[in-house]
């Protein structure tokens, strides 16, 4: 239900800013707002049903001034405040990003490795996925020593696991299951 609401608002905003050719800027602003909305205290304030319309307006004005967002985004926040949909802000940011990625034929990926990757390794991984998926890949990298070695890539929820940890676990399972290792 809330996902549907967020998608509907995101789509409406997308159509507006696409006409203004401000897609990337709005996406960046929404990511800031999302980070803000994911803070527990701010999320509680945004979802508080006891806030009056004036208080909600003042709240979004303060947020917009602080983050220095565009007028379109400012107006959008006012709209959400009037419709008591400020609690959907994080979801709307996610949906907007998905719509934008789909429109720009790109996909987001998270590359996790046991040790930091070199630029060449990162580029090689991104290039491999772009070739595989036929879409541009926006990759962010993370380091997780528990992987022991290798890499694990999350592409829009799909996991490509080349970590040493997973291979060792698979090996251990084959040993425990009595199956041949070769």
């Amino acid at each position, binding site marked *: 239900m809330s996902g549907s609401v967020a998608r509907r608002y995101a789509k409406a905003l997308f159509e507006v800013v696409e006409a203004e050719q401000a897609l990337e800027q709005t996406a960046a602003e929404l990511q800031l707002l999302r980070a803000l909305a994911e803070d527990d205290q701010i999320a509680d304030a945004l979802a508080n049903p006891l806030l009056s319309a004036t208080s909600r307006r003042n709240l979004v004005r303060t947020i917009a001034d602080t983050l220095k967002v565009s007028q379109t985004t400012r107006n959008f926040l006012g709209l959400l405040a009037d419709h008591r949909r400020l609690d959907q802000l994080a979801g709307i940011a996610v949906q907007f990003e998905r719509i934008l990625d789909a429109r720009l034929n790109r996909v987001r990926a998270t590359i996790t*490795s*046991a*040790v930091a*990757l070199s630029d060449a*390794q990162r580029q*090689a*991984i991104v290039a*491999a*996925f772009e*070739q*595989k998926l036929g879409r541009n890949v926006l990759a962010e990298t993370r380091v997780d*020593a528990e992987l*022991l*070695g*290798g*890499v694990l*890539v999350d592409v829009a929820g799909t996991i*490509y696991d*080349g970590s*040493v*940890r997973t291979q*060792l*676990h698979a*090996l*251990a*399972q084959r*040993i*425990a*299951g*009595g199956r041949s290792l070769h």
Partner: protein
Amino acid sequence: MIARLSAALLALLLPLAALAQEIEEHHPHPGIPWAKLAFTAVNFSIFVAIVYRFAAPAVREWIVDRRNTVKAALEQAARVRAEAEALRAEWQQRIDRLGGELEEMLRLARADIEIERDQILAAARRTAEAIQRDAARTAENELRQARERLRAEVADQALAIAERLAPQRLTAADQGRFVDEFVSQVRR
């Protein structure tokens, strides 16, 4: 009628007896006493006539009855004897047949016993086989479980050792090789 006849005979005999007594007393003479003898003969004849007249029919009737009774008894005895003979013959036949029947009964009993014995043996054999199968299955399961536990233990230990040693043993070259292999797999 009998009473009248008896009275008439008594009336005749009493004067005759008195006459005979008187003759003997008044006219005694040596030699054979013919009068007394005649009286006795008449008296005996009358007695015989009376007996023949009154007792003979009853005696004849008794004899006839007795004969009939004896005849009936004899016939009954003959009948009973015949029945007994028939019964004896029947029982003799039965006794004669009894040997064969006993043999047949024994044969059937032996056959039943053999069938029952075979059934019991077959059931016992099946039970024994089932027990053996269960025991074998149990032993196999226990062996398999023990093997699986051992493998799991070995796998856990191997995994723990590998996880402990990997950070120390893996080099940058190894990491580069892992990345290259991963990229190759993604490109496939």
